[in-house]
């Protein structure tokens, strides 16, 4: 029962991305295999040095950097989306696996979640 949570929402402007992350961390906490895929506007969750306190929110980049410690099996980022938003190893947090989303990554999971 492998789950993939798709993160295709822009960060902070709405809550659904944050709530999708909570789902992933919750599965991991209950020892269910789960991976994250950042794609589209969602790759912007991966930017280093977010200062969400500027809008009185909590930054998630440190949580994401620690995701595998909490049991998330992998963090994938869609290569094309990263390129579109100018994200590379210097601007992205560590531990991200670049993926070609169209090459069947989704097919490897039994359960795929996309919160719009």
């Amino acid at each position, binding site marked *: 029962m492998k789950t993939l949570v798709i993160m295709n929402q822009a960060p902070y402007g709405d809550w*659904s991305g944050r709530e999708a992350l909570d789902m992933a961390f*919750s599965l991991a906490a209950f020892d269910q295999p789960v991976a994250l895929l950042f794609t589209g506007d969602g790759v912007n969750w991966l930017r280093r040095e977010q200062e969400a306190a500027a809008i009185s929110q909590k930054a998630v980049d440190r949580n994401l950097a620690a995701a595998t410690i909490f049991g998330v099996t992998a963090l994938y980022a869609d290569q094309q989306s990263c390129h579109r938003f100018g994200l590379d190893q210097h601007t992205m947090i560590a531990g991200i696996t670049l993926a070609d989303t169209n090459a069947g990554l989704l097919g490897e999971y*039994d359960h795929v979640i996309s*919160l*719009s």
Partner: protein
Amino acid sequence: MSNKISHSTLSFTLVITGAPYSSQAPQTALFFARAAVAAGHRIDRVFLYGDGVHLASALASPPSDEPNWSRQWCEFLNQNAVPGVACIASALRRGIVDEREQKRYELGANNIAAPFSIAGLGEWVEGVARSDRVIYFHGGS
């Protein structure tokens, strides 16, 4: 969640993430749930997440010529003995509280509609692990 493919009885967990009177999600989910029960399937639970928790409000009062989706959902849950659970983190942020949370946060009222209850994401994880199918009903704007 098993990959069982079958025309026999399956078990479902339904997850609603869109709010009534804001999205169509609770409506589509209700029609789906009725059809699932009519086909002999079992619904293990309905889990409200994100904006979906507003479906558990006891105070929603649409005009009398519009359906009250919260009430219709409560009737469905009661008639079919299906547990309805609102995610506690989503619910508290959005002002959906039961008697216990009312006391804990010293609030002036509670507003959850029976038989909905409040619980953690573990209820949803249980569905992912054990139900044959987990179907999501999102907002669709």
